[in-house]
């Protein structure tokens, strides 16, 4: 590297000096300036009901009625037959606008040239939409950066659980997305009858406040997805393998452990479990996220309860006895593949794994059958079953769009809200007859190979906007089984103590919770002893948990009207 010539006015040392003075100046600025305390990261509590600016609900007449009539919300009705589809949406005005929408995708994205997209574009009047299929496995984390950088196109389709990865989603929403209030408030049934038919509480859950402490700043920022009802996930058991081993479906936690011991064969590469983290807490009566329960007149965090120790004891026992796949902690295993291969007996998963597994069996990609364990308890305790509490997610529009563009996008959302039994629903969920599916003997659409790849495996438009009512649909056997399962667990559904609110904990609490999860993992995978639990709890409470109790108690009081 050349040094400056003798004649140069700039020397390296001069540069260092200048840089040093500059750095000192920058560092000095804040010292000179009047300093204040750190105030950010306090958490928020957002009401999701009682608004007068939501779309006026107008009943939308369903094209077909379900033959299995349940008891919503936790026991939804279902269809075991496929109704003759009818038009659900009046033909839209011709439009030529182009939009780009980011959607999650698990697997290989379909080609943008697929006839599926052409058919939908024609059906809704010509608006061209390019879908950005982003990896679903990392969507939650990476969407944080896209949203901050305004690099998600004209709209983004997000599931509710993804927002947990966003450090302050309330602030993101009100600063990043289009405020829909003035467009959707009041009677919108003329132009968007299906959006008007969506449940009012779904729209209420699409409200965020610029200032959560000031109800006057509440506005509608998203188009709600379905409000799926009943259990959203479960511990799925390969019932065929269970029967082959002469075992029966466990009905208590003790039986789960016994079945796991009998089925596991380390030398043969067979283990009862893979991950256990988000389904097993309910077996011990622990609260679902955010992990607070109202006990003896105050809010108590899961980690403060004796059930927490029992839960960790159970998980540690499973690990110590080799009942869990030994590579589970690496987090790199394909749970679906292992479940299909019969390497693991039980797999915690979303409730859709039931239908997905059955479809794989029908297409010859898997054998046997799966079913979720019911509501079970430990040592005779009353079981609880986690159920969906809110809308599945939202589609948010970019705040830089014009009002006309937003209205056109709402036309598309209205199209996507078409319920079961309409031609629009069939097109969005099954594609084009002959190209993607054919009607089976029972009248149900059955995907061909192209349909499975382009339509069946992709989220695309399926979750863009909620339907006026959500039913159990699909394979009649699965629908029947799910209907019966929901009936059997509905009485054990967990009560949402924060109903009507969206509560986000303070930053310190989130950090403390992350540490708690890390320490839990240490115990579950044999790196720390159960005797360290009291220290863990003390650390959690002193580093943010105790302060969060006050935050969540205030929210609880608000939710209960105290």
């Amino acid at each position, binding site marked *: 590297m050349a040094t400056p010539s003798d004649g140069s006015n700039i020397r390296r040392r001069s540069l260092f000096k200048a840089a040093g003075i500059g750095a000192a100046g920058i560092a000095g600025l804040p010292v000179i300036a009047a300093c204040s305390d750190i105030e950010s990261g306090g958490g928020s509590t957002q009401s999701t009901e009682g608004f007068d600016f939501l779309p006026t609900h107008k009943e939308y007449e369903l094209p077909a009625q379900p033959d299995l009539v349940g008891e919503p919300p936790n026991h939804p009705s279902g269809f075991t037959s496929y109704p003759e589809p009818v038009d659900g949406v009046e033909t839209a005005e011709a439009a030529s606008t182009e939009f780009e929408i980011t959607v999650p995708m698990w697997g290989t994205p379909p080609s943008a040239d697929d006839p599926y997209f052409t058919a939908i574009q024609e059906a809704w009047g010509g608006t061209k939409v390019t879908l950005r299929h982003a990896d679903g496995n990392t969507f939650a984390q990476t969407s944080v950066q896209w949203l901050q950088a305004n690099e998600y196109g004209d709209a983004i389709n997000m599931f509710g659980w993804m927002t947990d990865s966003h450090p302050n989603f309330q602030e993101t929403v009100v600063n990043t997305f289009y405020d829909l209030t003035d467009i959707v408030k009041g009677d919108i049934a003329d132009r968007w009858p299906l959006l008007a038919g969506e449940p009012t509480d779904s729209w209420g859950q699409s409200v965020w406040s610029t200032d959560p402490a000031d109800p006057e700043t509440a506005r509608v920022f998203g188009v709600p997805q379905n409000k799926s009802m009943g259990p959203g996930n479960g511990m799925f058991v390969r019932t065929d393998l269970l029967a082959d081993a002469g075992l029966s479906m466990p009905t208590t936690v003790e039986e789960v452990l016994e079945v796991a011991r009998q089925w596991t064969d380390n030398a043969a590469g067979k283990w009862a479990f893979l991950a256990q983290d988000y389904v097993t807490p309910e077996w011990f009566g622990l609260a679902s996220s955010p992990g607070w329960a109202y006990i003896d007149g105050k809010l108590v965090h899961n980690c403060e309860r004796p059930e927490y120790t029992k839960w960790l004891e159970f998980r540690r026992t499973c690990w110590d006895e080799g009942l869990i796949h030994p590579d589970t*902690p690496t987090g790199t295993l394909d749970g679906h593949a292992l479940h299909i291969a019969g390497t693991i007996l039980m797999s915690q998963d979303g409730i859709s794994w039931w239908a997905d597994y059955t479809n794989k069996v029908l297409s010859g990609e898997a054998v046997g059958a799966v079913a979720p364990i019911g509501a079970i308890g430990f040592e005779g305790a009353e079981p609880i079953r986690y159920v969906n509490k809110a809308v599945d997610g939202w589609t948010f529009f970019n705040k830089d769009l014009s009002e006309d563009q937003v209205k056109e996008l709402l036309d598309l959302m209205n199209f996507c809200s078409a319920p079961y039994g309409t031609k629009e629903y069939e097109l969005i969920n099954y594609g084009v007859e002959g190209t993607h599916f054919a009607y089976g003997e029972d009248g149900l659409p059955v995907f061909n190979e192209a349909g499975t790849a382009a339509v069946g495996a992709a989220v695309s438009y399926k979750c863009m906007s909620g339907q006026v009512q959500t039913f159990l649909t699909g394979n009649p056997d699965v629908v029947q089984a799910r209907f019966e399962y929901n009936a059997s667990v509905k009485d054990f559904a967990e009560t949402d103590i924060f109903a009507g609110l969206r509560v986000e904990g303070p930053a310190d609490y989130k950090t403390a919770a992350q540490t708690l999860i890390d320490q839990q993992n240490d115990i579950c995978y044999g790196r720390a002893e159960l005797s360290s639990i009291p220290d863990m709890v003390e650390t959690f409470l002193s580093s943010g948990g105790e302060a969060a109790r006050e935050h969540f108690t205030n929210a609880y009081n608000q939710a209960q009207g105290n």
Partner: protein
Amino acid sequence: MAAIQTSSPPAASRAAARPIVKRKRTVGQRLRHDWPLLLMTVPALAQLALFFYWPSSWNIIAFMDYSPYRSFWENPFVGFAWFERLFADPYFVPALLNTLKYSFANLLFLFPLSIALALLMHSVVSTKLRSVFQSIVYLPYFFSWVLVVTIFVQVLGADGMVSNWLIGFGGDRLDIMSDPSTFTFLAWLQWAWKDAGWGMIIFLAALASINPSLYEAAAVDGASRWRRMWHITLPGIRPVIVLLLILHIGNILSVGFEQYQLQREAVGYQTTEVLDTFVYYRAIQTAQYSFGTAAGLFKGVIGLVLILVANKVAHRLGEQGIYQKS
């Protein structure tokens, strides 16, 4: 021994004999004279300004209670509050110690491995064999850490290829992927597989610059292969070794993120928490950007000091370092 001068003296000697009175040129004159050169630096300056100096100037948020949704000047200054919080955080020191541990392990075990691989490659005569070997060794550098960790699980995991062989021979399963006590060794294996080949390429380039006639002369003088390596090869690439060493020392607090984050659950946070994961879990995940920037600034300042010290030491030892002595 005095030499007979048969040609005119070199320019430097002439200058010494006949001093030139230099006229100091004005800035305008210099600009008129040097504008083509200055023009050529514009793209580089623009790139540096846009992607380095402008983002670097945002380090000032380490002294603010910053929110991206407020206008910049509405963010209150909080002095060194975030630094106080950083140094008081009970997880900061363990993360710093882990970072230093992995960084020094990388320096001690990977750096020499790259040099050894380069020397090995250099000694391979067959061009075809060298080409194949080179591709095999440095291809993993282009793999993502996700892929590297997944491959390691498939091979060395408790249900991986090696374990299943061991089971087949009546042995036990290998536990290296989830054993905190062997994680440094595992990390070294992963670095060696992923990065050693890339380091080798740089040293190979340095080796190519050594004059082959030196080897020929040494061989004629009867120098053994070992002697040639010791007295020609290593001195020949010493400036590059020192340069890379200094740059590595400057990056001593940056050991990467993905490798540790991906294996956090497998071996535990106490083993894998390094400064970058500390920032992610304690600052980014909770939107405390000022806190994360304070940690980043701490890393940057330490890195700068280490580079300057290492460079000074290099000069003292007679090496060129990252820039020449004035």
